[in-house]
């Protein structure tokens, strides 16, 4: 190849050609993502959709999903916020291990989470045995659905919240400290308000993750309509029996996912949040 003559270098057409090249390759991926989803929506929007949406099994799955993912998001908020704050604010021995444990569920297949939970909380498990002695049994209960959701969705919140806390300028905290604020006052009146965008994003993300949880739930909580059959489980079961219900549920989940993304974008744009 000859060295190009710089004086004759013309950025215009070459740039355009490259732009088309990049966009052309990239559009294949867009097509791969868009075509199946569009087909799903198209198929789901059948005449019977309204009948399926009114089916009692669909409604039970929907309300159970709403309930469990909201409860688990509450648990994540209560336990995850102090954890995220600790990780952002202080360093301590073994911190890297704590971080590893928190990040693992993000990359771990949820099925493995389900098996791990079943082994730990099961009748012969390290946590299950003492609970069993108290007459509490977690597997196959609605509480198990919540635990599975906290397991897989909690890390999303902790990560996001931690970054939110960590990116606050230390000077702001120090200024409050100089003014005489104690650690709790700093947390409540300085850190949480300044990190609120990150906290909200984290909560919404983990709620959505909990809502879509499947693998850990089906192993740890089982599948029982009205008790542990959340929407993703109903979709899985429906695919084998009633495709219409599975499609109706898929459409609802898709809609909720789209809403979540809109909400996240809205928060990201700087629209005031509570």
């Amino acid at each position, binding site marked *: 190849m000859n060295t190009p003559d710089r004086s004759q270098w013309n950025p215009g057409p070459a740039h355009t050609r490259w732009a088309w090249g990049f966009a052309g390759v990239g559009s294949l991926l867009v097509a791969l993502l868009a075509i199946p989803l569009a087909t799903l929506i198209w198929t789901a929007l059948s005449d019977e959709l309204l009948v399926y949406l009114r089916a009692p099994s669909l409604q039970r799955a929907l309300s159970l999903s709403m309930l469990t993912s909201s409860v688990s998001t509450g648990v994540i908020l209560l336990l995850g916020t102090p954890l995220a704050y600790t990780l952002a604010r202080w360093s301590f021995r073994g911190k890297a291990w704590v971080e590893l444990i928190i990040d693992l569920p993000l990359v771990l297949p949820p099925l493995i989470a389900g098996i791990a939970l079943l082994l730990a909380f099961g009748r012969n498990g390290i946590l299950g045995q003492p609970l069993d002695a108290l007459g509490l049994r977690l597997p*196959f209960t609605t509480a198990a659905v919540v635990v599975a959701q906290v397991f897989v969705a909690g890390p999303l919140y902790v990560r996001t919240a931690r970054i939110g806390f960590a990116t606050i300028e230390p000077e702001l905290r120090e200024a409050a400290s100089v003014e005489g604020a104690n650690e709790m006052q700093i947390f409540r009146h300085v850190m949480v308000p300044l990190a609120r965008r990150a906290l909200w994003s984290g909560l919404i993300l983990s709620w959505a993750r909990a809502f879509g949880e499947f693998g850990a739930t089906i192993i740890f909580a089982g599948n029982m309509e009205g008790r542990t059959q959340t929407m993703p489980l109903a979709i899985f079961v429906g695919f084998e029996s009633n495709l219409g219900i599975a499609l109706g549920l898929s459409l609802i989940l898709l809609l909720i996912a789209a809403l979540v993304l809109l909400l996240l974008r809205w928060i990201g744009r700087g629209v005031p949040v509570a």
Partner: protein
Amino acid sequence: MLCRLSVLFVLLTLVTACGGAPSASSTTPPATGAPVAATIEPTLAPTRVPPPTVAAPIALTVFVPAALTEAATQLGTTFEVANPGVTVAFEFGHSPTQRAQLEQGATPDVFLSASRKDMDLAAEQQLVLADQVQVFARNKLIVILPPNNPAQIQTLADLAKPGLRLLIGVPDIPIGSATLSMLDKLNASIAPDYKDRVLANVASQEVGVKPIVSKISLGEADAGIVYVSDAVAAPTLATLEIPDESNVIVVFTIAPVAASAHPEEAAAFAAFVLSDEGQALLTTYGFLPGAP
């Protein structure tokens, strides 16, 4: 150049992803079939006769219900040894799902179904060769209990004891619907509210037979209802027999897929499963022979 290469790469990925997706988990790459023949040949013919067929081995894909996992794997290995140059790869799943996959254009070579209904639907739509549908195995139900039987279940009537945790299959899959018909029959012989009381004990309707076996093995529930063949495959579990008059016989059917690219080999595999050798093999895994 780079641009073209990357386009090619993306296209190749797409093509392989599309073609391979339905069978990605279990398809044996064609190449692995050859060594089976190659390693056996030299011992039989020390004079190093060149292998009779240089043609690429034929890879059969077979849709199999998960209940047949161990038995089918053994059937496949035996068939491969008897038919050098043919490899068999299994895809294990639920019959309704696999029938739906057939409808959506999946083209395995042979379809084995745990439910008569799904085979009949596939035959009606001419997805399989309707005139070659045959019953190749039968199975009946049995109650499995954790090894130490924590709930002290001694009789079928005990399944109605309040507070028990029972695992059954979701009614939409063959094991689930068979369980419900069995409970209907027991209802008549044990007590009029037997079925309702048993169903009130159901902790979970599992989406397959294998999850029931695993969770009972872990002791997470007090009893599960599965096929006899599953109990045979898990010898550590305690069992409770269900008398034939109350039991439900499930038939497993086999048929070559109409759109198979290897119809002869597909028919040969079906014939092998139905042969005395195939039937004997299935019996060792706890199945009843296809012919009553």
